[in-house]
């Protein structure tokens, strides 16, 4: 048994936080571009969401100098952190589209991929439920569409068959569609695991660095561009992949990228307590309308029950893109209650909203040599980015080989898997399964709702990506995410982080500068 909290083998990449006066140690602080070396990067990926991290993971298998960069202070912190936590089978995609192709490929990848990333995946399957006569009439077309997407195991179920599988299904259910390929996954750990392997394989990661512009190099040949951060650091790069999600338009304007229009499509979700989990056995999907896929009800891999999302198109840069509304949450409860009886009386523990990157030009807009040679734009991942992250990474690398002249030679020392020692993970507990090397602090619970120990938090702080914000710890350990929403654990958690890292407790943040846990400018008074 590998010892908990010790990543073996060696980490070859560099990790820095661009966090001038902030809550990270001196050794992690980015102060000059020289820290990353003088040699230009072969590829710089702007945007460490699940798409960027997946690409970094795939590129790390080759002998290349790669940089993964994000404006936020953890990977997977933007669009990738708030979604329905599902792996889609692509049964409802547009047949023949790139999305359909990517989802079909990815569906076959995921069981093996989850095992390599060491993240939990639960292939529980989905049922699309028709609750009106009109919806029932649409089932046949939906089945045909699924078969056209090569989801051949999709078939129509009668109301009786659904009730056998889902005793708490709404009494209005008329029939449905069985979609065996849908799975539950930990959406946070997908980005984190990709990035950890990439870092171990030598990909450099720079967090908290907003790219304000691109200085284009001059052809002929593969020109040397520079990424310029908001605080003026210049990073030399040969190729740039714009995977900046909702920031991709602003970045593309910086290098004269082609026309595309994106906007945040807000999805509000409602998370129910674990007592609601037995209510539902599958991922329950509504019959989509022309406007939206509608409100689904799904278990989460964490053992909760989830309902959502809404689909509200908001203008780009709207600060409310990740805000919930009383009205939106009411609509989610209504929508969920159409599928599941008794949902409304289940205790709610949290509401959240995610902003999908909706693109008027369709899902997965990919442009090579966009604006200048060596630049790839990938945008519009909308709602299937997590699922497609792996097949999209392969697709992008193929494109870079063909269109950008990227030469690939496999790195024989590269890891393909997260090692067993890549703990912590909330699903592997130090005291479970006869583990013998747990420490005493692995037995001291800090988060009482999810039963997370101080030891697990210390191990997470020591993990390769050195998470330093409360939200980053939450995504790794599930601390702060139980029914009390940090009531009991916020202050003790901050005490542990401060004690373990030496960062002043008053400097600690929820998710980076400006999100200090107490009003800034105070010094701690110790009793």
């Amino acid at each position, binding site marked *: 048994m590998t010892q908990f909290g010790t990543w073996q083998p060696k980490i070859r990449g560099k990790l820095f936080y661009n966090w001038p006066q902030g809550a990270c140690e001196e050794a992690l602080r980015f102060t000059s571009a020289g820290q990353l070396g003088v040699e230009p990067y072969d590829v710089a990926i702007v945007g460490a969401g699940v798409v960027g991290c997946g690409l970094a993971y795939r590129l790390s298998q080759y002998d290349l100098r790669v940089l993964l960069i994000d404006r936020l202070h953890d990977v997977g912190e933007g669009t990738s952190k708030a979604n329905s936590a599902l792996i889609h089978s692509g049964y409802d995609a547009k047949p023949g589209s790139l999305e359909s192709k990517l989802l079909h490929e990815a569906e076959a990848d995921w069981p093996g991929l989850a095992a390599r990333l060491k993240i939990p995946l639960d292939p529980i399957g989905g049922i699309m439920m028709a609750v009106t006569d009109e919806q029932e009439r649409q089932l046949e077309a939906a089945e045909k569409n699924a078969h056209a997407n090569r989801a051949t195991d999709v078939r129509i179920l009668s109301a009786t068959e659904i009730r056998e599988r889902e005793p708490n299904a709404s009494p209005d259910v008329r029939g449905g569609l069985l979609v065996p390929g849908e799975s539950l996954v930990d959406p946070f750990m997908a980005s984190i695991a990709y990035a950890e392997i990439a870092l171990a394989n030598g990909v450099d990661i720079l967090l908290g660095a907003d790219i304000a512009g691109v200085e284009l190099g001059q052809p002929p040949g593969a020109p040397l561009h520079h990424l310029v951060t908001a605080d003026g650091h210049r990073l030399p790069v040969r190729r740039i992949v714009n995977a900046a999600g909702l920031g991709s338009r602003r970045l593309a304007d910086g290098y004269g990228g082609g026309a595309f229009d994106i906007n945040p499509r807000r999805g509000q979700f409602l998370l129910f307590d674990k007592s609601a989990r037995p209510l539902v056995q599958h991922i329950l999907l509504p019959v989509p309308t022309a406007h939206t896929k509608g409100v689904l009800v799904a278990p989460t891999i964490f053992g909760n029950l989830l309902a959502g999302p809404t689909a509200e198109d908001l203008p780009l840069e709207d600060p409310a893109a990740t805000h919930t509304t009383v009205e939106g949450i009411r609509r989610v409860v209504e929508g969920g209650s159409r599928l599941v009886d008794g949902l409304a009386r*289940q205790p709610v523990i949290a509401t959240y909203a995610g902003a999908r990157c909706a693109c008027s030009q369709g899902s997965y807009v990919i442009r090579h040599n966009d604006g200048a040679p060596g630049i790839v734009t990938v945008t519009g991942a909308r709602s299937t980015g997590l699922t497609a992250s792996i097949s999209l990474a392969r697709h992008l690398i193929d494109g870079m080989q063909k269109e950008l002249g990227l030469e690939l030679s496999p790195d024989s020392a590269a890891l393909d898997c997260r090692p067993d020692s890549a703990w912590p993970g909330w699903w592997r507990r130090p005291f479970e399964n006869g583990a013998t090397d747990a420490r005493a602090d692995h037995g001291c619970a800090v988060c009482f709702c999810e039963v997370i120990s101080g030891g697990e938090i210390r191990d997470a702080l020591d993990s390769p990506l050195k998470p330093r914000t409360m939200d980053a710890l939450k995504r790794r350990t599930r601390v702060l995410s139980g029914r009390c929403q940090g009531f009991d654990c916020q202050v003790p958690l901050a005490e542990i982080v401060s004690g373990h890292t030496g960062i002043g407790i008053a400097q600690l943040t929820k998710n980076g500068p400006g999100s200090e846990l107490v*009003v800034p400018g105070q010094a701690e008074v*110790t009793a």
Partner: protein
Amino acid sequence: MSCGQHFKVAIIGGGPAGIGVAVGLAKRGIGPVVLIERRAEVGGTPMGYRKKPGGVPTFVEWTRGRVVFGEELAGRMAKRLAKTDTTIRLSAQVTQIDPAEKRLTLLWPEGVCDVTADAVVLAAGAREQTPAEKGWLAGARTARVGFTRHITGWLDGHGLLPARKPVVVGSDLIAYSAAAKLRAAGSDKPVMIDRRRSPSAGLFERLFFRRWTRPDWSGDVTAAGIKGDRSAAGVQSSDGQDWHGDGVMICGELVPNTELALLGGLAVELPSRQLQLARGQALSEPGWFAAGNVLGGFHGAQWCYFNGRQAARRVANFLE
């Protein structure tokens, strides 16, 4: 504690109610008794309200007719507990219960361990309702949206002010005491908002806290959202009222900590999370009892202590 140890009575929770049970059982000569507390000290919520000069005493000690700091009150209770033979397990959390077998699974510094008992008392206290549970408060998920427990944790534990311009959500005694604590520690005059038309704290209670603050009150808020980008910048109602601040404190309106009962299969009402009582303080399964704020509502520390003493009587009757 060797695994599989059997006790006459197991008490879950070492706050005022749990201590009351332990003291009551000791007076009756019932033992062995184990008291299981998930934090590193007994005393529960009042213990976080540290005694300090210039602070706000918020706990009524009815038996002596005065208002004191939580730490003083809980400290006196802890002393009474220390005089008993109760086995006390600190930093030990019950993670699972088996109601029929009266078996508890614990996580504590030595690992995972099972304990059985002839009777079990649930004295797990309560927590404050989250914005999602309120239903009328949505908006941004930012830093500096906290609970009263965070105010005491930051202020009494570290001398740090969680907000300089606080917006307090809630209007019961806890909300008023939170507003008073913030003001006494140097915040601006707090703004207080609630869904109710008039504050739920009584007139006498409000008069008491006037010594430190008279929060700016706005009632009748039907739907509102927390504003802010990375940190809370106040609250805005759907009809356009705006309360500016640099921290939002979610105060009062307690939710009983009944998750062990709920997930273990004891009868619990939903969505209120209230325990269903068979009679008195007895729960749906014979041999299970509850004491203190886990029974629902909001009661002071001394009420919880005496309620624990009463539960001890009921446990004694059951064991006979």
